């Protein structure tokens, strides 16, 4: 079975405003505002303009940040949440 690929909403559609431990993301395409915490902003930044798999994403995150006890399941759960609110598209 082919791996699922993920793609973030394009940068022009996102207005990102880090506040404190939370970050605000205004999604222009939908007109919706999201209040998110780590690792959501980091995931979106790491997806950049590519369409990549969850495994590749985890690797990429690992090179940029300290991942602590991050696992495939945790990452998948966060990805699914971002897909549900529309900031990431699952292809």
């Amino acid at each position, binding site marked *: 079975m082919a791996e699922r690929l993920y793609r973030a909403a394009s940068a022009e559609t996102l207005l990102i405003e880090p506040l404190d431990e939370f970050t605000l993301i205004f999604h222009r395409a939908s007109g919706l*505002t999201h209040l998110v915490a780590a690792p959501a902003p980091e995931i979106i930044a790491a997806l950049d303009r590519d369409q990549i798999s969850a495994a590749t994403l985890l690797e990429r995150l690992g090179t940029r940040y300290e991942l602590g006890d991050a696992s495939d399941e945790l990452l998948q759960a966060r990805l699914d949440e971002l897909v549900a609110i529309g900031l990431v598209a699952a292809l």
Partner: protein
Amino acid sequence: MKHVFTVRIGPAGFRVGSDWRAPIRALERLYAGYPAPEDNIPDFTVRLFAARPWRHWLRPSITLGGDFVLPEAAPLPLSQGVLAAEMAMNLQMAMGQRRYLLLHASAVEREGRAVLMTGLSGAGKSTLAALLAARGWRLMGDEFALIDPASGLVHAFPRLVSLKNRAIEVVRKALPEGRFGPLLAGTPKGDIQHLVPDSRSIARMGDPARPALLLFPRFGFDNAERGLGPSEVFVRLTQASTNYVALGERGFAAMTRLVREVAACAIDYPDADAAITHVERLWATL
């Protein structure tokens, strides 16, 4: 409609049509001194009407109508005509305002800067605004603060101040010279009496101010004070706004600017005097 009243409050003009003369007469008296809508074209239309022909005379009750309506809104007795008009005008703003970001907050101004006080019903924002106005602050509004997304300034909406229950006595004592509307007993929200903003506040209703302090007051608790982090402020303010979502990107820009630039504080207070002292002390430290 048979009887008509028009008025401008801040940047918004209203046209109120009524099946009865009495509410219009009361509005004309209370809003004497206010300007007419710009170019005589109101932003919003309100209707106070009899839902059934016999409701005109038999236990007359006012059904609220207008450009924007809540179909489930309960009618009010004719004796509460001013309250009906106020509720209907508020509804037009809450549902139809699209230029300014609307916050459920009172606002007072001093030297070009404003304090915004927001909170649930009963938190005391109307009372505090009226009492601060008695102490020389300019009253910008007791129900809605209008934020201009382009400039970040707050614009005044000095409607009649709505005082409830015990607050009526407190404010009447502080403002013996004040102009008040009729005492409306037994409304859905208890006893209500309206205070007419002073002539200076009316004359300067077109002057915006720079927001300098955001307060989240809570009445009936021991004195306390807590600074608020930006994400908490953001969430509370969006909950206090009826049109944040409808304004889209402009709403986001206005709200994030407020959150970034304006000091925010939650204050608890046991009585009005303590609150006023607290507010003026905070103001002095800015």
